């Protein structure tokens, strides 16, 4: 597993961002760059899949925090799916479950955008 690779996929009007590896202050630029580009392009319905992340440091959560209101202002949202282990734990202890909707699976997260 390399430090970080970020793949994106489209599922109807939702973009799934799938980072593989880990996100820390060194690798976050890669992750943030992808999110930035999506939000700037108006691709604001975003699901981040955590299935292939080994850990995410505060810098990674900061990237989501810094963009989520922009995505919401554009009629979308940033939602996360398939968090496991340390990533899920850190999400919770940072209180991100109050900022950001999470889903057990990527499919559920994609479907959650169906209503609006």
């Amino acid at each position, binding site marked *: 597993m390399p*430090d970080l690779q970020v793949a994106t996929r489209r599922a109807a009007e939702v973009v799934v961002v799938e980072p593989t590896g*880990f996100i*820390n*202050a*060194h*690798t976050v630029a890669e992750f*943030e760059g992808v999110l930035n580009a999506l939000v700037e392009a108006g691709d604001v319905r975003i699901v981040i899949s955590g299935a292939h992340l*080994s*850990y995410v*440091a*505060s*810098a990674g*959560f*900061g*990237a989501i*925090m*810094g*963009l*989520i*209101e*922009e995505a919401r202002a554009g009629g979308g949202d940033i939602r996360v799916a398939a968090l496991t*282990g*340390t990533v899920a*734990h*850190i999400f919770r*202890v*940072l*209180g*991100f479950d*109050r*900022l950001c909707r999470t889903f057990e699976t990527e499919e559920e997260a994609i479907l959650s955008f169906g209503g609006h």
Partner: protein
Amino acid sequence: MEGIEPLGTERAPLEIDVPATCECLSLVHEATRRAALAEGFDPSAADEIAVAVGEAMTNVVEHAYRGEPGHAVRLRFLPGPDALRIELEHRGAAPASLPTGVDLGRLARERRRGGLGVHLMRRLMDHVVHEEPAAGVGCWVLERNRAGFRPPES
């Protein structure tokens, strides 16, 4: 001619200098995670300790040394009977104060991309302070209690 014992005996406390750069974060994470595993912490606790130490290292790189190149951090693993203590000593700026909590909603509305580092260290470890042991020297001290250890009431 005996073999070298693992951490905790002949070579403890372990002390190494690391370049204060974000490029070294993953290696520090990995060395910390393995130190914690070797000390008997379970895999998820070891991961959490490694993330916390990565936050302290990031703080030193970005705030204490303001991203300037050419500085070092002295990393110490100090296993004790009740807790694993890890120190990151530097010669950069000290934080004026440590945040006691964060208001995520407000940070998000202000489009802030940071401000979570110290908070996360605190949530993952049992004891986090920044000390100034001498003029011009700063030191993050992080402790995680061993499973089953009940700290004294305070």
